[in-house]
């Protein structure tokens, strides 16, 4: 167990190192001069040269990468080219909102998917099953962008129950939560469509097992059989998909934050790339990679917790 965690931590560090290097060099071969993007097409060559000098863009690429890396391991991610404030500050002011959005979306996704999936499995072949399957087919087919617009038109424009977008900040937690309901729902509906299908098929698989028949035969209630015996044994594929969806969630927030004009990381990375704010993009992509790698690591730990047989093997 400890060995596994140590091995994973080393892998984690190496993955981040590789990704940060890849991003750095890719961003630097990408055509586009940050000074030109910032100062625009009416700028003079000497003003752009002065700005490049200020930003340290005249140093060799390798040197800049090493300097960045040296700072990054000490928690200093440099100063944004375009925002002129420390990158760490930019990320810190936006991270809570994105985490809250992603967290809320995950909770809704998992709750919705488990209920729907289990319901469909227990009503296999009947109308309820078909309804869930139809819902999930729709959820997979509909783009999150379009779904978001439908939600906004219904709940914000027509009914006026919720705001159409924007984020009021954390001073008023109720208002903050209200602002996150529609975007989290838009993210969750799409994600839960996939997860509900996986839950359903995993449950169907488990319910064919003889121990379920035995449990039923001992006189346990169907609900107890379902939640105590069937679901825990169906969790491995479900957790795998949840882990994979974390990566989707990260990319999903970029779209959703633009549609709901939320001040989150997704919108920042979009802006930073178009502004050629290389140093900000660098930190953010590394952060996203860290989130995905962490999620995968947590999934592996979850396997150990779910399935005692795996624990014995390590």
């Amino acid at each position, binding site marked *: 167990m400890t060995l596994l965690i140590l091995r994973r931590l080393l892998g984690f560090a190496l993955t981040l190192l590789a990704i940060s290097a890849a991003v750095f060099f890719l961003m630097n071969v990408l*055509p586009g001069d940050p000074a030109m993007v910032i100062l*625009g097409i009416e*700028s003079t060559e000497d003003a752009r040269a002065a700005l490049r000098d200020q930003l340290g863009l005249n140093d060799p690429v390798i040197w800049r990468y090493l300097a960045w890396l040296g700072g990054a391991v000490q928690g200093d991610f440099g100063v944004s080219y375009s925002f002129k404030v420390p990158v760490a500050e930019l990320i810190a002011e936006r991270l809570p909102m994105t985490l809250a959005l992603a967290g809320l979306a995950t909770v809704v996704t998992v709750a919705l998917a488990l209920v729907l999936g289990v319901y469909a499995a227990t009503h296999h072949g009947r109308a309820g099953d078909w309804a869930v399957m139809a819902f999930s087919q729709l959820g997979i087919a509909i783009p999150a962008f379009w779904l978001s617009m439908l939600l906004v*038109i219904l709940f914000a*424009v027509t009914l006026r129950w919720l705001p159409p*977008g924007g*984020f009021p900040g954390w001073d008023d937690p109720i208002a903050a939560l209200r602002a996150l309901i529609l975007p989290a729902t838009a993210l969750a509906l799409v994600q839960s469509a996939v997860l509900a299908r996986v839950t359903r098929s995993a449950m169907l698989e488990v319910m064919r097992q003889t121990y379920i028949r035995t449990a039923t035969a001992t006189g346990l209630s169907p609900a107890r059989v379902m939640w105590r015996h069937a679901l825990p044994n169906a969790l491995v594929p479900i957790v795998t998909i949840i882990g994979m969806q974390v990566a989707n969630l990260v990319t999903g927030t970029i779209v959703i934050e633009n549609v709901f004009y939320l*001040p989150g990381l997704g919108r920042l990375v979009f*802006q930073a790339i178009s*502004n050629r704010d290389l140093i900000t993009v660098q930190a953010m992509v590394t952060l996203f990679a860290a989130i995905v790698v962490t999620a995968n690591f947590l999934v592996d730990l979850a396997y150990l917790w779910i399935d005692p047989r795996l624990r014995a093997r390590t």
Partner: protein
Amino acid sequence: MTAFRAAATAALPAALLAALIAATPALAETTLSIGTQQEPTSLDPTADATASIDGMLVQNVYETLTQVNEPGEVLPQLAKSWTVSPDGLVYDFALQSGVTFHDGTTFDANDVKFSFDRAMAEGSVNPSKSIFAPIASVEVTAPDAIRITLKQKDGFFLFNIAQGDASIVAPESVDGNATKPMGTGPFMFTDWTRGDRLVLTKNAAWRDAGSVAIDRVEFRFIAEPAAATAAMLAGEIDAFPGFPAPELMEQFEADPRFTVVVGSTEGEVILAMNNSDEVLKDIGVRRAISHALNRDAIIDGAMYGRAQPIGSFFAPHHVSYVDLTGTYPHDVAKAKALLAEAGVTAPEFLLRVPPFPYATRSAEIIQGQLADAGMTVKIENVEWGFWLDEVFKKKNYDLSIIAHTSPNDLGNFARGPDYFYGYDNPEFVKLWDAIKFEADPVKRDALLKDAQRMVADQAVHGFLFQLPKLGVYAKGVTGFWNSSPVLYQPLATVAKAN
């Protein structure tokens, strides 16, 4: 309720109660929320060219010596008057007195000198450094007087120093302007949540504060056209002066809650041609392309009919405008004949398109129109940073579609073959110099018309349409400019009926 209030009064110390009352915002406070598509990255217009910085802050937070009104006339601002020497080289400005920056520091001629010297300095990163190039010196002649001496006459000087690039800043606060803009204007910077909103509040100490009707302004950053529409419909936004989607205007026009205004901007949209290209340097080929273009179809398809066609590189709302849209009427047979005459058969062009809706939408229509005239166009949609590098800097393109949004930019054609037009015409350079140095309005008007004709006649580019300014306002909101001669939008004259 009354009982509660009486009990509270009895229980609370008087001082605390007073504090509570003071903290309650005045009921009459008027807040205006303005939607804006482009989000700024920094708030210093003297160090970043992002248009929304000027759009939100110039003449609101920052002020300049002169200002420009909606018709494009130059008016006093921090300079209350000026005189120009007979040779047109020495400008003496008399400054407003009693002006303070929002942090309380006094504004005087030293701040003006500081601002200009900083913009002109060797290591300056001012995005429009070239507008300061004609200046020889800036001298403080009295605490409320400044003298600017030019190296050469410049007919655009007073207009240019009304732009955000020439904002008057203070040495005490300039370093913080990127995040905490400090100026002398009618509104003070209050708060900025990056990615969400920027808040200004009325500056009660402004010299004409009595005429300002809005107490608080909230700019909300909404990039997505569909989201902008939803925000307007839900009543979250009072005004969207630069609405991003012409296709959605009809919906607002049909809705009695809104006023829709279609005005003009300084943006000439052109099908840029690389005049240094082997094929395109032939005027016959450029004329063939011009004849192949059908402007009305492009405007209908790309702008839903909401734009004015142009036949040269000049804004139709300008007094010196000449209508040259008839120079190369849409004529496919003529286009083919001109190509044949030039000895060019089935030419192929690379059309590199920047990521702006007006450009991407026009591209496919133009591709079809040129195909009708026997020309093959390969469309390549590129991202803005790429466009700046490959098209603008390296001239690595045949055709492109771009709006030139600066005022008085007809001078682009005098920039010589190194500019991305690749256009080399010493005659035009001479003409533009004459325009720059001409102070007599009648002569200048004639010269400007000549310049428009020359550019049109030479078919330097395909001239398409003037970028419209699409404004959507909630009923009761007044005072926004219909058309924009400059990048900014003064809010001191804006009002909102409750």
